[in-house]
């Protein structure tokens, strides 16, 4: 029997769903599964029982809590799809809106992080899901396979002055050869999970951390990381770094 899938969007940009639809293997994926609920391609009245639920987007309204509880009840396994569902996502930058990851309210069986998830990784995840296997996430951080990683010196001092390189200074691929941190540009690679194939870095932009933390939570990793480096005056006031993809769980 084909595994039944429920694919649901909460508060999100639907970027993850778009990525899903545009995956090379999407047609084959559709052949091997049975879609129960996927409003983008199919009209459905209610969320029915299924083997696997993929949930995209964060929880920003009370009603959504009941919704995901219902999803959890009717699915054998629930997976968070995309950074919003895994950690809270970009909406965390908002002052007024709530942006909670699924795991705050229900138990999840795994996650597919990324904003949106990189296609190769996403594809592998889907293959695993169809085969009733777990999703394998790297346990290392981005530096492990970073094309810019050079030798590391003891006592090297990092001073950060910029969040992004100036547009005219962006170097692509081969031209770019030095670690962003050494050039005073904040790169969250050290605290971000490996697995995205370093797309941003290859395009001359520092890592923003969308793959989420490997261990602990996003906020404490950022605080730990920044406590080691010197920030320029203006950046010290910029709190967006801490909330980029996740709000601190400190508020009860």
């Amino acid at each position, binding site marked *: 029997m084909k595994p039944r899938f429920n694919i649901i969007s909460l508060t999100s940009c639907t970027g993850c769903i778009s990525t899903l639809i545009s995956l090379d293997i999407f047609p084959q994926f559709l052949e091997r599964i049975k879609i129960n609920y996927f409003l983008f391609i199919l009209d459905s009245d209610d969320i029915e029982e299924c083997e696997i639920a993929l949930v995209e987007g964060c929880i920003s309204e009370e009603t959504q809590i009941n919704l995901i509880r219902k999803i959890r009840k009717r699915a054998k396994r629930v997976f968070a799809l995309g950074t919003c569902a895994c950690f809270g996502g970009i909406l965390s930058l908002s002052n007024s809106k709530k942006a909670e990851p699924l795991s705050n309210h229900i138990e999840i069986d795994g996650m597919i992080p990324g904003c949106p998830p990189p296609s190769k990784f996403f594809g592998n995840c889907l293959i695993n899901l169809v085969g009733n296997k777990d999703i394998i996430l790297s*346990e290392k951080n981005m530096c492990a396979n970073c094309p810019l990683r050079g030798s590391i010196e003891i006592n090297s001092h990092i001073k950060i002055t910029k969040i992004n390189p100036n547009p005219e200074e962006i170097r692509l691929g081969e031209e770019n050869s030095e670690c962003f941190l050494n050039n005073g540009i904040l790169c969250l690679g050290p605290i971000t999970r490996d697995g995205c194939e370093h797309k941003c870095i290859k395009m001359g932009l520092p890592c923003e951390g969308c793959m989420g933390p490997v261990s602990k*939570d996003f906020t404490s990793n950022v605080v730990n990381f920044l406590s080691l480096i010197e920030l320029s005056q203006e950046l010290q006031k910029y709190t967006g770094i801490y909330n980029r993809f996740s709000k*601190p769980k*400190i508020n009860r």
Partner: protein
Amino acid sequence: MDIYSILSHPFRRKILFLLEKEGYIPYTELMEKLNLDTTGQLNFHLKKIGSLIGKDNKAYFLTEDGKRVLKIINLNKRILAGEFIDEYFDSKRSEISRVGVIICNCNTEISNVINIKALENYVNKLKKVVSVKVFENLCQQKNFEKIRNWVKDNFINKIVIAACSPKTHQNLFERIFEDIIDHTNIEIANIREQCCWVHQPNDEQNNLSLPLEKGKLLIEAAVERVSFQKKIKVKRVEIEKSCAVLGGGIAGITLSLNLARAGIKVYLIEKSPTLGGKVARWHRIHNMGDCSICFISELIAELVNEKNIKIFTNTEIENVTGEVGNFTINMIKKPRYVDVKKCTGCKQCISVCSIEKPNQYEFGLSNRKLIYIPFIHSYPYAPLIDEEDLKNCLNCRICERACINKAIDLDQKEERIEIKVGTKVIAIGSDFYKDLEEYNYNPKKNIITSPEFERLLSSDGLTDGKLVKISDKKPIISISIIQEVGPSKYLSDFSEILAEKYIEDVKIRNPHCEVNVFYDLSRLKDKDEILLRSTNPKFIYANKISIKSSKDINYVIADNIEFQSDLIVLNIKYIPNEDLKNLRQYMDFTLDNNGFMSVDTLASGIYGVGTIFGPLNYNSTISTANNVALKVISLLSKDYLIAEFTGIEIDENKCGLCGLCLKICPYNAITIERDKISIDKFKCKGGGTCASICPTNAIDLNIDTSKKILRTIKIFSKFRSNPKIIAFCCASCGYAAADNAGLKKISYTPNVFIVRVPCTGRIDTNFIIKSFELGFDGVMIVGCRQDACRYIDGVKKIENKIRLLKNVIDPKYKDRIILKHLNAVEGNKFADTANKLYNNLLEEIKYEA
């Protein structure tokens, strides 16, 4: 029934194998594992193998006989398989946790506050606990045998002792269980200092159920922690039977002599070109007839004759690595430019040298040549040129020609020396207070310091021991001595006897000379103390002392009364040695409030002696030197130590080689070379700052693991009463301060839970966030004072984290994270902080509700 018939049935063998694999299996689980539906069959077989298995109230396990039988079966199997058997299974190396809990009543100190019976029942119900035992007084010798038997009978391999602070009896407990339980598997739940002594019942408010509940949670957390402890590799360290003594002053010399006579090889390392230290330049020691230099010379003579002592002068420490029993010290012997072996001490070279500079050994009162002998009783007695003076040297090389023995070698280079020692003693002494501007200090105008006065009195000094003015060499008829010149935070131990000695010395030289001794009370912090201590009618206690000079005459003005003085002596205090800060990079110790070395925090294998701990008089210095000598001898009398590495472990499967740990480690113990991370176990001190920032959790401490700490927080969060406060305390200062509050029985709210971390730098931001998430309302972080951190700058690191964290969190939480710097005796401040935070939170919670 013989053993072969018992084992003939495959079912019984299966039971035995299962028990061997799992250790302890409850009846129902056994049934499940064997796929049985009825109890009859299992009961039958269990009965048959009755002699090989035992049963306690919860599970089945193998008896000693059973283990032996299984060993034979397994060995047979391996031999049949053609394997070469070279090692045997060690039954002590069990991976299963069998946690036992001992509750010590501490002679009713515990039961006065909490109901021990209730505590025992609660602990007994904990899933991980095998057995609980209550003792009236655990530390009594008569109980030791009982405990050991209890441990053996219950197959306990991990133990929680709910009693006093680990600072009190941890060593004792480790010794009791030395050969049956690894000491990392001994966890102490501090229910005395952290619970009973600080939550004493009083009439007004205290709810007695809270201390009981706190006690329960303290024990439960300790049980959890110890059950997470993994095996730590131990190693045998052969003890190098030698000792390095840093500093060749009176303390270093006495100690070296003591050690050498006990047959220990001693390396005496002195930074300056001569032995003798400060005392060598004193005129005379109080209550001793002999002049101090004669005394020192005698000691040096003995020292030089001692075969076991090797003396390095003009030598500085470059680096120290290793651990107790086996340190490696790298030193640099600075060039002396004179070959001591060839030199006869004829001083020809000195007489021909044409450049003069102030002599630092006479405190700049007189001049010396560029090539010089520090003082006449120097050892080694040979001239030298200071390395930094070489640039002022005219390079005329006349001295070279003047030396008939060709002892002078201006091209001498510094020499690197490496020694191996078992232990080391720091005896570098302290410095003199220098900031004397407000006293109009000027030796040329007869306002001098006490060391300079010593040189004046000394027969080999500036005035050949005559009492004359420095300015015009006229006799002195009035002297004023101003006491306690220096930082007002502490008192000099010996300023009074020094003043008395000066009076004596002056009266010998000139009976008519007037000597006044002044105390400036406005500069003394503990006025009462000095007034109580001192009953000396010869001294003048004034509220304000100032010095005025007009027309070459100096006056001391004490509360508006003028005292004309030919000579004013500033009796200066000792201040911490500047080299202490450098030494901290390679030796573990912290500084106390006044900047001296803190005696409690010295790591094992390192000792200190003399005035590095603060002002100390001559007699006390000698007696501490003797004391330390005994400690060193007893340590070095063993042939080996069993040492275990307590520090970090790196999981290479998780490490992304980002190098953040390299940036935070104060000892540079971690290196990444060719995509491989490695740790220098000799350099790692186990502070855990690297573990706190590792983004992938690849680094963790092997004892204070993150898992243990997070679990402890989780268990403490079960406490019912609100608001709850969690206090992360560093092991050397914060935890000791909390203990101190207990010792002083300063009551504070039971809603504070103390988590011990090796250093505040170990605290991960995640711990703080997690605490709030789990329902704590306040977080207290108690660390050492600035500059006093045992791990050099751990307090700085947590400060950075907290500053950044406060950027992120809701403003109302900003006041709920408190960072406090305390030292080990400030228990009252600990209690104050806890109570204040508690009361604030109480208000806020009321307001919110």
